[in-house]
């Protein structure tokens, strides 16, 4: 029979902790940095850089702006060290803290054996590790759901502690801030309260209500920044959030119903989708995939057992009139914790994803551990022989231990594959850190220079390397989309080119100096500032001069013409103004036969005194008749589409050049 002493308990906990730490902290440099991570890091880094408290996070998949808690959590380590790796490590730390939190609250409530088993399963849970290793809005949820579950159970457990009830409101607020899908946890939480909260005698009501009042205050306090943010937005987000659960829960929402939430709950307990045999990762691990259905069976059986407990008690006459034992209450709470959100989510099953159900963790592991503990306790009764006890123990525990071992091995394999480059996950922390380090070094070597990032995306919010801006702060960083233009600044500038752009690179090669640290992920140039006087071809009333243009390509049907303009900014654009250029290819009657509009270089990056180039492409129709054509250009405001007039003129277009299309 498995019994743990205090010493072995501590020893086992340390071993589990070390294992959990390795699985979470190992190879974090390979943590993926996609667009979502980039946005999260940018807002948090801005908080750390400027001290301005963000009142909201980024937009959620549902189109609403997320509450800001995730940004505070990410910003916390960035206040000490502006490093992506530090931010990811902190996330891993929260994940590790969740593992220990599970042990700390379950051990005093249920004893050491189930606490250790649940902790082991949680420590090696593939999804808990997965979200513990990379930055995602929902990543810290398992920590807060562990704390919430713990607070809730402890507030009902032996020696009730009302302050845990108050704290549970805080954890609930945190979880719902981290994923709006977790709002279904609120009715779950309230239902559990309704079911298990013991009604006090009349004279104790004021005291009994105190934790509720305190909890509600904590809940509202955590939402205060978001409230302030949304007040400025006319409460559009809060209205949408309040409407959403209603439509999801009552009206069925806009998405199709299905049983996906059930399978997602099972999946979160086992992690089968993560390393399916047909993936490179799945192919590299020990082929013990049969363990997955075993743990799913364990989970399903424990779940059903917990739900049947109240019925069982009802049909046992000797228990009639007695309060349900706390352990049975706990099992029922855990089962409801899983059942209610799953049921409430059925109407929107099509939109379900793992992160939307992350708050279910670690309930399945505690549920399994408690039921296993019940079986083991039952098997240690006097009626069962010693051999049978060992057999039961082996049959019950062996698959779970093997599963934990296999999951740990699987993640170890993943780390090995990532380190050897055999498992591609897109841009990783190590890649971005390298780019940041290189640009920081260049900015230090050339103090006072700006940085222009030439590659994908023309804005920090859309560029894959947008977060570089916040990690080389306070240097000014501007983004230009390759093939769309180039900033030719008045002051000294460093360029980091990550995409192919012949026009830009030829200009940089001619006017700048290639810096030695050229690498596959980017080429660096230094250009000294200069001011060039030129007579403008046209001046627009927003302080923009057209200095020069160049037309490349053959004006023939089906061909593409490239228009290159050089502009001079004599007046800084107003904050929040966005200008777009239009380029029209007109026939003799003034009809547009080809056109391209766009910002060229984002207005945000126009600085007084700078020149910048833009490139536009006119695709001539295949059936373009021969004749005389003209090209005209102009500027308009976006998105209200007001054309800017030329200075001291009512005209809004500048006649660039005439083009003759010859007969084929």
């Amino acid at each position, binding site marked *: 029979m498995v019994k743990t002493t205090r010493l072995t308990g501590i020893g086992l906990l340390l071993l589990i902790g070390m294992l959990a730490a390795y699985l979470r902290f190992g190879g974090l440099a390979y943590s993926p940095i996609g667009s979502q991570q980039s946005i999260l890091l940018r807002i948090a880094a801005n908080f750390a850089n400027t001290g301005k408290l963000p009142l909201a996070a980024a937009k959620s998949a549902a189109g609403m702006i997320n509450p800001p808690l995730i940004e505070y959590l990410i910003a916390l380590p960035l206040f000490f060290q502006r490093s992506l790796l530090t931010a990811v490590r902190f996330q891993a730390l929260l994940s590790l803290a969740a593992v220990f939190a599970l042990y700390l609250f379950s051990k005093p409530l249920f004893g050491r054996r189930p606490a250790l088993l649940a902790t082991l399963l949680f420590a090696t849970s593939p999804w808990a590790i997965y979200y513990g290793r990379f930055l995602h809005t929902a990543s810290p949820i398992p920590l807060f759901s562990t704390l919430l579950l713990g607070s809730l159970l402890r507030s009902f457990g032996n020696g009730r502690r009302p302050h845990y009830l108050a704290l549970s409101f805080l954890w609930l607020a945190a979880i719902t801030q981290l994923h709006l899908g977790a709002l279904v946890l609120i009715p779950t939480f309230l239902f559990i309260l309704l079911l298990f909260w013991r009604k006090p005698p009349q004279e104790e009501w004021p005291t009994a209500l105190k934790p509720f009042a305190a909890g509600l205050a904590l809940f509202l306090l955590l939402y205060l920044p978001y409230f302030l943010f949304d007040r400025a937005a006319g409460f559009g987000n809060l209205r949408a959030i309040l409407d959403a659960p209603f439509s999801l829960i009552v009206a069925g929402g806009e998405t199709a119903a299905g049983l996906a939430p059930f399978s997602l709950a099972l999946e979160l307990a086992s992690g089968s989708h993560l390393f399916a045999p047909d993936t490179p990762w799945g192919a590299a691990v020990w082929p013990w995939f049969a363990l997955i259905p075993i743990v799913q069976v364990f989970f399903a059986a424990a779940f059903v057992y917990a739900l049947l407990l109240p019925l069982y008690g009802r049909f046992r006459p000797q228990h009639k009139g007695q309060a349900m034992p706390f352990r049975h209450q706990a099992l029922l709470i855990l089962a409801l914790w899983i059942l209610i959100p799953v049921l409430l989510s059925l109407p929107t099953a099509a939109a379900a994803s793992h992160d939307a159900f992350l708050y279910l963790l670690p309930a399945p592991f505690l549920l399994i551990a408690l039921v296993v503990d019940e079986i083991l306790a039952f098997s240690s009764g006097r009626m069962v022989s010693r051999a049978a006890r060992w057999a039961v123990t082996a049959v019950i525990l062996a698959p779970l231990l093997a599963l934990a071992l296999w999951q740990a091995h699987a993640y170890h394999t993943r780390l090995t594959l990532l380190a050897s480059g055999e498992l591609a996950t897109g841009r990783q922390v190590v890649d971005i850190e390298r780019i940041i380090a290189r640009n920081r070094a260049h900015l230090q070597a050339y103090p006072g220079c700006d940085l222009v990032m030439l590659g994908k995306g023309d804005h920090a919010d859309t560029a894959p390397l947008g977060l570089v801006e916040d990690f080389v702060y306070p240097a000014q960083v501007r983004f230009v989309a390759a093939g769309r233009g180039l900033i030719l600044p008045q002051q000294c500038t460093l360029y980091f080119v990550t995409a192919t752009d012949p026009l830009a690179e030829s200009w940089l090669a001619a006017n700048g100096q290639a810096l030695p640290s050229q690498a596959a992920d980017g080429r660096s140039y230094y250009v000294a500032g200069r001011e060039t006087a030129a007579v403008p071809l046209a001046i627009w009333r*927003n302080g923009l001069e057209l200095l020069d243009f160049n037309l490349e390509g053959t004006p023939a049907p089906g061909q593409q013409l490239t228009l290159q303009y050089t502009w001079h900014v004599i007046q800084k654009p107003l904050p929040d103004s966005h200008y777009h250029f239009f380029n029209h290819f007109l026939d003799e009657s003034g009809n547009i036969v080809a056109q391209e509009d766009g910002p060229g270089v984002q207005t945000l990056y126009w600085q007084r005194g700078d020149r910048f180039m833009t490139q536009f492409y006119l695709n001539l129709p295949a059936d373009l008749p021969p004749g005389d054509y003209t090209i005209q250009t102009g500027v308009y405001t976006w998105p209200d589409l007001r054309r800017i007039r030329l200075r001291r003129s009512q005209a809004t277009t500048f006649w660039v050049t005439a083009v003759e299309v010859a007969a084929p």
Partner: protein
Amino acid sequence: MTRKQLAQNLALALGSILFMLLLIEGATRLLLTKPQPSRFQLSPLLGWEWTPGYEAVEHYKGADYHIAISQQGLRNETVAIPKPAGTYRIIALGDSIVAAPGVAQENTFVKQLEHQLQAQSASSAIEVVNAGTDDYGTEQELIWLRERGLAYEPDLLILHIYLNDSRSFGRPAPLVARFSNFFDQHSAAYTFYKNLLNRRLVAQETGQRDFRFRYRDALEAGEWVTDSAALSDLIQEADQDWGLAWYDQKLLRIEELVLQIAAIAGENDFPLLLVIFPVSVQVYAQVDTPLDLTGPQYELVTFAGREGLPVLDLLPVLRAVKDDYTADALFFDQVHLKPPGHALVATAIGEAMGHYQLGPPSVAKNEHASDE
């Protein structure tokens, strides 16, 4: 705890809060400031407006002056509504330039114009109503005219345009306006801490206490008078105020609003005269700038000509006397005129009315005859 105890606790809690608030109010009054009736109150319609009945002797940039706001919410005597028969009524609609801080009401160009017209026509039944409110833009002026101004039955509308008139404004919710107006009038603590918080928020958002007026140091330094680059810098620094006029989309906005005002004037059968006020920088700069120093006036006058709207550009008027008056003699600051400036403007508007044959029939006729 019994119900009685609960009620006692609640009463104690509420009483403590109330006591604390009273203590804060008392301490603020004793140590910081007394409750001061505010010149302005929040308005769900216009953003803000004069507080009806407000009266005080105020200090404005070295000048003490008496200000009295009528119960109609104008810096003007109460005006008869409906308009008495035989009265010719002109509404002078604009911002603080028209309201004229620092200048006694009798010395404002609005009052001087009224006296001038009365003298010319030998009739006292000519009124020029001062409908200027601090910091109003053309959009607020349009709303004021539509919602309130038509009740005055104007015979002529003089719309004063300044270079920052494209600025947008926020409207408070009715309940917020009511709450704020009440406490503004009665609580020293509310006003004091609200202003403190607003200043802090502005500073936090912009890094400066007064982001809109951050050009003032450069304005006072005076390098812009002879240095083209400094002049360009100054116009750029003023891009949250009068510098807005150097952005075409902002001028377009003013033009759109003026057309709406002109349409209202047309529908109600009274003419419209546009008067464009310059910034003092345009009057006293001795150099031009790549940004085109007089561009906004050129564009607005061209627009008015295109739309057939009578217009008076005060830039040439004030430039013509810049050798006779120093900037300090003519202006309080970048735009607000001192009494000599008001006299010049009154004369120029009178002449423009004559030129366009606007005003009471006798005046328009006399002016036309003298032109001939």
